């Protein structure tokens, strides 16, 4: 649902990440949260108590609402970590669990 700036992205290197097993293309230097937002994925985790979806909120690492499981590690702030080739990104359920890094 979101548009890219063509003038910014035209010369950037592309990176392929896996989000819940699905490939998503991103631009080098983008954060995971921005890459997912750009691909129309705004729900990044589900909460423990009411199982509600949450997404990017403060965008600067203060609110801890964009927590995801990234390369097997839970509770990673998607707004602070930059995409890397073949990164394994998963929607975090509740408090999150340690998983296998791909």
């Amino acid at each position, binding site marked *: 649902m979101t548009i890219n700036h063509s003038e910014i992205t035209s*010369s*950037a290197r592309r990176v392929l990440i896996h989000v819940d097993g699905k490939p998503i293309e991103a631009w080098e230097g983008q954060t995971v949260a921005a890459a997912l937002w750009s691909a129309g994925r705004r729900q990044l985790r589900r909460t423990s*108590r009411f199982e509600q979806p949450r997404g990017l909120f403060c965008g600067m690492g203060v609110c801890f609402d964009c927590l995801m499981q990234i390369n097997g590690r839970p509770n990673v*702030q998607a707004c602070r970590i930059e995409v890397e080739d073949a990164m394994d990104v998963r929607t975090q359920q509740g408090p999150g669990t340690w998983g296998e890094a791909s």
Partner: protein
Amino acid sequence: MMRRDAVIIGAGPAGMSAAIAMAEAGLKPTVIDENAQTGGQIYRQRPSTRNHRAAPSHNGVVADRGADLRRRFDAVSDRIELLCNRQVWGIFESNRLAVTAPHRWQMIEAEHLLLAPGAYEYVPPFPGWTLPGVLTPGAAQIMTKTQAVLPGQRVLVAGTGPFLLVVAAALHEAGVNVLGVVEAVSRAELLRCGWRLFADLGLLREGGGYLRKLRRAGIPIYDGRIIVGASGDGEVSHVKFAACDRSWRPKKNRSQVIEVDTLCVGYGFVPRTELAQLAGCQLRWSNELGGWIPLIDAGQQTTVRGVWAAGDGAGVAGALVAQEEGTLAGLAMARQLGAIDDDCFEARRRPVVRRLARLRRFRAALDSLSRIRVGLDELCTDETIVCRCEELTQTEIDKGIDAGNNDLRSLKVATRLGMGPCQGRMCAPAMARHLAWRTGQAMDQSTPLQVRPPIVPLTLGDLAEPVSMDLPVQEQMLRETIA
């Protein structure tokens, strides 16, 4: 352990200005920042790894100011030790800083320490505010400016303060359909108090410029109105706002609903005080300056000797004030360290103090307009989540208060308020006001939640790996960082 004469935490406008003042005085300050580059939030740069051609500047004046500050910083950068991508997770006795390094950590002892951590946006709870697609104006700006992603196609910008105009204009220029700006302060009130804004004609003109830009684009300003709720199935799809009185209490019969895909909402800024608290600085409450702030003297020194504070983290007043305060602190620290004598200090300080006085008069007028009012505290329903991390509802918090927990610390113990990963940064400022309004206490009687290290997430694995105390290794790391 690394020892340094002067360490600055934060490379935003205040930290950069302090570093420039100290480097020009012949010192070699160390600057630590959690981001990959200097600039802080306001002068944030695009990731350097992305090798794109320069995009047109989306907020002219501010971007120019950032570029100017960076030029001055770069001119003395051979005398500045810049440690990026580092977070200070603890401050221990005699200004020993625990600093993260990638997957490890190190200790840096600072003889003089300047805290310039900046601020974050104030978003008090309202129904629907946890829905994905509801985010702060700052988050939308970062996404547009540095991430090459537009936050939405139908975006409403809401809250209070001139930053909303800056973000709305930037989003519009980037190609977003900005549906409007919902500003809680009414035009009538602005006109009544607005004469005081003439304290700084340049800044007044700058604000007028943003307003004209929005008018030309046909973006409506809904003044004297307040967001009362957001709704949607899994993501925000509708936002309701209503006309409000001077206390920002909504008039129920004068509301409207619009369809959006994104809501940017923020009511000013909150100073980041975790580091000041870790350093043992005494705090005071200031309505005008955004909440709790470290108590400082005329030279920006806190109540702890050798610990200084400047910029929005010492009281929200914007980037221009931050730069002047940073310079003041830098000069005062340089004098303490014997790098400049009293005469030189006085001569360099005088013009800064003069500029600060004018800027502060302008800010005072702005702050009195944008002050947080009681209507904002009355938007929650019983089920509205007020603590985003622990998912506590308004009812649960009120039960805790009514059971006699009439300060934040006992409320935390009773309800788990602020115990989640954000450590109360999101909920505590709003809940402190809620507590005061519900119990009739004065805000200056309130105390903030306590802060304990680590203030940034660390795994036990990270903690188990301190960087070797071996100096060559540390210097190797520094060389890598500076390179």
